[in-house]
Every structure is written in C-alpha cells, then in structure tokens.
C-alpha cells in the first residue's frame, strides 16, 4: 500500500493465487501477479495545488486580525448565545417532530381512496412546498393582522342570528391572538407546516416503496387497514423514510435562523449577530455561527448514521438500498 494506485492495479488482492478453473486443477497455484501499477500523475499535481491553497487558507485564519479568535471564543459561549442554541435546538426538534406527524397524516391522505382526502393532501403539499419558509415565518408573525382575536363559536353568526331576530353573538370563548401566538409558537407553526409538506412526500415515497404483497398478506390475515399500516407498511417504509429525514433535520436546524423575521429573537444566529452589533465586531460572530451550526449538524450526522444502521441491521440489501437513496439525494 505504498501508493494509492495499489487499489486499481490489484483490486482482488490475493485472488490471483487461486487455481485457474478446472484445467489447472491439481497444479500448484500460479505465482501472484506483480505488475507495475498504472501511474496517475494528475492526482499528485491536484494534491499539490490543493495543499498550497490549504496553506494559504490556514495562514489567513491565523494572520488576519478580522477573525479576532480570542474575542470569538470568549463570546461564542456567552449566556445569551447559549440560550440561542437552546432555542434553536428546541425549535428544530419540535418543528421536525410535528412535521413528521403532519407528513405521515398527509401521506396517508394522499394514498387513501377517498378523493376528497387525496385532494386535500395534494393541496397541502403543493402550498407548503411552494411558499418559502421565510415568507411563512413573516406571515405567521403577522397573522394578528388577519385575526385580532381567536374566537370559538358557531360560524356565520353575524348572518343567521339577525335572521332569527336575536341580538348578540354565538361566540363562547375568545382570546387575543397576541397572547396565543407568541413568536415562538408562530415559529413552530411556520416551520412545522412547511416541514410537513416535505415530510409528506418523503413518507409517501416510503409507503409506496413497500411491496404490495405485504399489505395483501396482512389483509388476508384479517388485519384492518390501520393495523396493516402501523404494523406492516410503515415499519418497512422507515428504511426509505429515515435517510432523507436525517437530511431534513439538518435543513430545519439551519432554517431556524429564519425565525428572527417573525421576530423570534432568542434564536442562535440573531443572538450572535446581536453580540457582533453591540461590540462593533461582527465578523468573528459570523464565524462563530458557522462553527455552531457545523458542530450541531455534525452531531446530527453521527446520530443519523447510527439510526440508519439500527434500521438495517444485518440486512445487506437494505444497507445497499440506503446507500443508493443517499447517493441519489446527494446528487
């Protein structure tokens, strides 16, 4: 293994020493092939160039004062930033979870044989995948313009009560929207509705990936539709659902940085920017944001790896399938 070229020259390792078919039976095994491997000078040139760039980059990190590393590390873990990290994590986790539940429900609607549910499900995915998350955030931040209060009652009372000659209204309970819809709640709603749209497509693809014979066998055993879904189809769909859901987890984590538009200001990125603005030293805080998001998503990736492994344990076919799905998602 002196050069990386060894692989391409001798991929099968000691396979060359196997007896060559029936004709050679009984003979001693032939000598292993010792050929000069093909050289790849291009790789060395590329490696040298990259090394040069890397050196320049490191040099800049160390020598450029704009990074102000001591300041960066001093403020990266300051209490308001840590609160920001917590808000971001909770917001991402809650939104993802609700999004998954919405996604499952909408996917089941779209696969049902009730045309109304199919249409509603389609409408949902269409709308929430078409509207950008930042727009949703601003929208739900300003929803109080649409409804100042949330009221519970019998609809259209302003029309039918006068017809019956009754004065007053048929509203039993009301709360001001502002108390109900705190910025955090608005953020959760905006992000989980959007997430639900994406999860619906992922879950639908997962459910469709399960062989039809599976639900037929389950039905033939007398299982109800719900039982078939819960016990047979959904568990098998998970191996297709889990890998892209991992990607969705990092996506929504990063998109929590949009909720300052609501405005929900306790979120990580806004907090770091605030520190930068207050100290007139913005750039290190932007770098700190990169580092924070890098750290959190890296932890997520490790978790995703183990989650996927636990779903496909001992199943080579499934592991292969997951690899294919991931490479398709990556390209």
């Amino acid at each position, binding site marked *: 293994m002196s050069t990386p070229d060894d692989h391409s020259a001798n991929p099968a390792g000691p396979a060359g020493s196997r007896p060559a078919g029936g004709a050679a039976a009984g003979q001693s095994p032939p000598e292993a092939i010792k050929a000069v491997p093909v050289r790849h000078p291009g790789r060395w040139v590329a490696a040298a160039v990259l090394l040069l760039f890397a050196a320049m980059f490191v040099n800049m990190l160390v020598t450029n004062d704009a990074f102000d590393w001591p300041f960066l590390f001093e403020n990266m873990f300051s209490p308001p930033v840590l609160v920001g990290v917590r808000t971001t994590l909770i917001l991402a986790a809650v939104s993802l979870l609700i999004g998954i539940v919405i996604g499952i429900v909408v996917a089941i609607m779209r696969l049902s044989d009730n045309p109304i549910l199919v249409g509603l499900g389609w409408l949902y995915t269409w709308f929430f995948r078409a509207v950008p998350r930042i727009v949703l955030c601003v929208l739900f931040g300003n929803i109080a313009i649409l409804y100042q209060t949330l009221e519970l009652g019998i609809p259209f009372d302003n029309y039918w009560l006068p017809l019956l000659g009754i004065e007053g209204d048929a509203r039993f309970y009301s709360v001001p929207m502002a108390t109900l819809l705190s910025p955090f709640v608005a953020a959760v709603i905006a992000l989980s509705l959007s997430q639900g749209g994406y999860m619906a497509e992922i879950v639908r693809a997962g459910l469709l990936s399960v*062989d039809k014979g*599976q639900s037929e*066998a389950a*039905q*033939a*055993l*007398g*299982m109800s*539709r719900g039982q078939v879904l819960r016990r047979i189809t959904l*568990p098998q769909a998970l191996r297709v659902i889990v890998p892209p859901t991992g990607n969705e987890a990092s996506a929504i984590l990063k998109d929590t940085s949009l909720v300052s538009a609501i405005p929900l200001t306790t979120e990580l990125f806004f907090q770091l920017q605030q520190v930068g603005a207050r100290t007139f030293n913005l750039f290190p805080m932007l770098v700190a944001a990169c580092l924070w998001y890098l750290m959190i998503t890296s932890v997520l990736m490790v978790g995703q790896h183990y989650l996927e492994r636990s779903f496909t344990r001992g199943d080579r076919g499934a592991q292969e399938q997951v690899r294919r799905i991931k490479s398709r998602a990556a390209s």
Partner: protein
Amino acid sequence: MTRDTGAGAGAEGTENTQSTENPENAVVTGPGDDRMVVAENVHKSFGRLEVLRGIDLEVRRGEVMCVVGPSGSGKSTFLRCVNHLEKITAGRLWVNGHLMGYRQRGGRLYELHDTQVARQRRGIGMVFQNFNLFPHMTVLGNVMEAPVQVNREPRAEARENALRLLARVGLEEKAGAYPRQLSGGQQQRVAIARALAMRPDLMLFDEPTSALDPELVGEVLDVMKNLAEEGMTMVVVTHEMGFAREVGDSLVFMDGGVVVESGAPREVLTNPRQERTQAFLSKVL
C-alpha cells in the same frame, strides 16, 4: 364443482338445504350444509378487461380443489375474489355461509365496512406465490402477528401455538430467524404456518411452489398434503399435476375467465373432454 359442465364425478348432493335463518345473507348455513365456498356466476373486470366471465363452482367442507389453467386465465383473480382482496363486479360469492364483502337486505346489496371485511377474512388463510412474509419480523413474529393483533390472543398463548405450528411444518428451530435467512421452501412453510395460526376454515394457495427451486417443491407439497389429510378445505392453484392427482378431490380447469371443465382429478387429467383442456394438458404433462 361446477354446474355448467356436469363433468364432476364427485359432485354428489350439493344442491341441498337452503339456509333457514338468514336466507339472503347466507345460502350455506349450519352444519346441515357442507358447502364451504359457493360461487355463482362470478364476474370480475379490471376496467374494460373482463378477467372472470361467470364462474360457478362449489367447494365442500374438507374438499381439496385444485385449479389449473394457462397463465392469465384468471386463477389468481378468482382466489383473490374469494377472500375479497378483489371486489367482484357481478355474481355472488359465499364463504362459510357469508356473502363476501356485502350484506344483502331487501334485495339490495350493501358494501361491508373495511373492518367487517377484515373479520370475514379471518377464517380464510391465503398462501402466495412469493410467500410475502413480513421481512421486519422473525419467523415467530410472522406467525404470532395476526393472532396477537387481530384476535387479541395473549402473547404467551399465541407464542405457544406458533411454535406448535412451526413444529408442524418442521421449522421450530428457525423461530428466531428472519425470513431472508431462510430458503424459499422454508419461507413458504412459514407462510403456511402463519395462515394456519388464525385457525382458518379454508385455505387458499396461489401457486405456492411456482417460485421455488425444483428440489424445494417437495417439502412444501408434503406440508400441504398433511394439511389435506387432516381435513382442511383447500383451493389450490397449481401446476403440480402430480399433487392434483394424488391429493386433490376435484380439479377445475380454467381458461379465459371461465371454468372449462371440472371433475375428479384422475378423470380430467386422463380423459379430458374439452379440446382446450386437452391442448393445455398436452403442454404441461
């Protein structure tokens, strides 16, 4: 036995007692009637394609009926109609006295709710060509699944029964294995045990050995033969003419969505009366 051909040598006395208590929903009721499956003029279309074009047949309790016929003749479709995996488009189909998929009242048919159809299916076991074992469950899990989930049997009891069934198909030592770790023949025997776990009155087999390597066919047929000897009512779509001759009580030849000929297996196999039967048998025998 089909009524239209009259070739059935063993079709004695099937036109007996009509039901007494519930004449519309159940033509076959009570111990007095020995008909497990009654198909009356069953039609099935997929859009424009008419796959079943008037099937009339009856399967008595304890009878093993083998169904043969060329590919595409509607054999699988008919089996799937029997447990209502497919809705029939015309005719009537009763299993064990129950009109499959519908309730008849005042001369009208009412579709049954999903859960009611599911209840009707509990008494009908089905074995598929591709086994369709649940890959995310162990062999034991596969066999226990329906008794626990559907019948709400206590786990310990279901487990004991499952192990007994696995022993019966010769696979108790594979209880902890996953389906993918088994050979095709072993998987199909697990599938049979899984269906038996619901204590069905009727077993449907759709080409149970067609996906198997030749050397594995025998072990599955042996299990089916034992089942037949224990008196299980079975409808078996198969290309195994040896099995049909040896185990079958009756043989039905289907072609183009109709029953072309039926009767005692030996009779039909050695003395086919219809030209289409002769042509088919000359190809497979």
